């Protein structure tokens, strides 16, 4: 059973030892930006620990909105319905330490995604929220698609990132 704590200075040693070297931007985000954004209340980071108090993973969320790109509307003169903004929560980063990815023993990535969906569903009960959004790296596309996220567009001018969405209404009973 994992336990969580919000990121703080007391976790510096654990964070310094976090290893996500197969996708270094995830590791660098945690080590260089996550605490600052958390203290600014711009993006909230949760750290997850196993029973031996090892930091096995984390994720970071912030409030987002999905905006249908205006320059395309103007360029093509398309008719749009009144609704072209959709409130969302963005899964900014999620990562599992490479030393804790033994799928025979546990599925921490899947568990953390369950935590994200659970949290965002709670938010959506009290404040409008249509989607969980992700700017996904190509290496992570198959993981998110495995759990129902859909690619909605590839970002232009942002390298290899893909915009993905999970519609929360799909999960209602």
């Amino acid at each position, binding site marked *: *059973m*994992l*336990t*969580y704590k919000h990121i703080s200075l007391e976790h510096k040693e654990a964070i310094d030892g976090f290893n996500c*070297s*197969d996708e*270094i*931007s995830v590791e660098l*985000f945690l080590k*260089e*930006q996550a605490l600052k*954004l958390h203290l600014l209340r711009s*993006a909230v980071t949760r750290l*997850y*620990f196993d029973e031996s108090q090892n930091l096995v993973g984390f994720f970071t969320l*912030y409030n*987002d*909105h*999905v*905006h*249908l*790109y205006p320059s*395309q509307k103007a360029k*093509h003169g*398309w*008719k*749009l*319905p009144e*609704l*072209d903004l959709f409130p*969302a929560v963005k899964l*900014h*980063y999620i990562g599992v330490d490479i030393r804790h990815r033994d799928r025979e023993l546990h599925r921490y990535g*899947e*568990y953390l*995604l*369950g*935590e994200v*969906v*659970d949290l965002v569903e709670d938010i959506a009960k009290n404040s409008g929220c249509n*989607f969980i*959004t992700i*700017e996904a*790296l190509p*290496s992570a596309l198959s993981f998110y*698609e*495995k*759990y*129902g996220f859909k690619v*909605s*567009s590839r970002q*232009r001018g942002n*390298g*290899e990132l893909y*915009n993905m969405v*999970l*519609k929360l*209404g*799909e*999960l209602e009973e």
Partner: protein
Amino acid sequence: MPKQGNLEGGRHKMTTEIKPIRPTHLEFDSEEEMNKFINYATSTKKTSDPGLDRLRQLMKTHKRAPERK
């Protein structure tokens, strides 16, 4: 853009710049595609999809992690 970073264990590590906080802008190649997305976003109909079924099942059994004391 992804970049080839330093060598580690004989392999190049792929590095990507850290993403900033920003809204999600969706670009579509046609009005039809855009309307399809809007219809999807506003529809109350559930999509039949193996991935969504997997997530629905996962959420039925998910037990929320307690906060560490």
